[in-house]
């Protein structure tokens, strides 16, 4: 798996395709995280922005290897493992982006609540932000795994359904990503840090199921 991850990472980093989601994420942060604004708002915004970016990264990674090359690597390692490696590469890349985004939000924002100027503990807030990032990256990976090949093979279905799923994951009431983000933003009013343990665990479960399903589908022809 280490060799497959190295191969997929090289495919991602040496292509210029990672640039677009990076620019999108940077644009989200530039618009949403303002200098001197309340910390928890910035962290919540950063995490929310990570979800569509992760789904996009997944799309890039699972389509990054040309068919003929994928046949060779699938023969060597099995189609499921090859697919798992591409999903993991996207997820790890998203985690890296999330960490950078959180560091930026911590540096740019002021550790105070949005109402009444209550001090917010910096490190617990940053930790909660990272965990919310994780929840969003996991859910973005789940969306990407389900809304791309091998589950959805045609771009005509994959792209719109992926966008819709990202939107739902962000705004739907039961979504763990929504819970993690709104936990941070709501806490920002009073200056209380809500660590999103349960949303992160739920996202992990969803990602596990989605990734397992997608990897099982790899190698099956419809």
């Amino acid at each position, binding site marked *: 798996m280490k060799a*497959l991850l190295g191969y997929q990472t090289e495919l991602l980093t040496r292509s210029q395709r990672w640039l677009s989601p990076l620019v999108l994420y940077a644009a989200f942060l530039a618009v949403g995280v303002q200098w001197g604004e309340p910390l928890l708002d910035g962290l919540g915004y950063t995490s929310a922005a990570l979800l569509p970016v992760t789904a996009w990264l997944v799309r890039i990674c699972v389509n990054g290897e040309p068919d003929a090359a994928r046949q060779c*690597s699938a023969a060597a390692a099995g189609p499921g493992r090859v697919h798992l490696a591409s999903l993991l590469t996207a997820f790890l890349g998203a985690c890296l982006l999330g960490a950078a985004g959180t560091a930026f939000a911590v540096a740019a924002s002021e550790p105070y609540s949005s109402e009444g100027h209550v001090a917010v503990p910096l490190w617990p807030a940053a930790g909660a932000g990272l965990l919310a990032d994780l929840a969003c990256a996991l859910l973005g990976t789940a969306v990407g795994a389900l809304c791309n090949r091998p589950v959805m093979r045609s771009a005509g279905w994959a792209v719109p359904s992926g966008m819709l799923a990202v939107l739902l994951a962000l705004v739907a009431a039961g979504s763990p990503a929504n819970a993690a983000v709104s936990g941070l933003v709501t806490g920002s009013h009073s200056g209380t840090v809500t660590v999103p343990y349960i949303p992160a665990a739920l996202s992990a479960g969803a990602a596990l199921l989605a990734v397992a399903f997608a990897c099982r589908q790899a*190698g*099956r022809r419809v």
Partner: protein
Amino acid sequence: MLRGVDLTLQEKSLVRVEGANGSGKSTLLRLIAGIDVPSAGRITGRPRCAYVPERFPAAMPMTVLDYLVRMGRIHGLGRSTARERAREWLERFGADAYARTPLSELSKGSSQKVVVSQALMVGAELLVLDEAWTGLEPAARTMLDRAVAALVTDGSTVVFVDHDPGRLAGAADATYRVEDGGVRDVTGQEPQRRGAPASGPRVRVEAEAPPGVVLPEGLPGSPQVRHTGEDTTVLTVPVAYSDALLRGLLAGYWHIRSVVREEQPR
């Protein structure tokens, strides 16, 4: 679409798969290689597999050597071994000048050499070749023939499809025909009717045994053996196996008297 396929591949064998265009040869090969999963039934006991597709238009953002080393690592080789073997095989195919060339800049023939090297450098126990010879120049084709013979000699199973009925003629240990959505064992059946030559070109090796030594079992290419004198033996094998046979004999301290390429039998 294939149905009701029941196939057992032996170790140390060369297997030819034939059939009309669109009959499902490539599907069968991808199933054997484990690239595709059958919708019903299962495939068991598959060893580590290397695969060569017919075309390798891999517009990937890495150099030839980087790609080969990565693939070698995926097959479980160490980094330095992978690099060494990649260089060796590129050299054998006369493509070592391309080691630092990005894959996207290669010609069709050169990319085929890369993907063939990818498969041969790992010494896989199962090698699946889907028209791998297509796009290679004659010298590279012969090299691939010999490499296949050497792999089989070392105990691997090689499964191949090629549009040329004379490819490795007379060397295959089993032949399967894909037609009407099924697979039929046609090993040893009237090759001429399938458009293949009776046996293909062969090489005759006259060798002298060391005193008191008998001919070893299981020589490469299952040679036809004729004892011509007290110590001298004449062995005949398909051309692709001639080097492997000589290696086998020399390793047993046999003395080689002559090597002659036989005229194609009619």
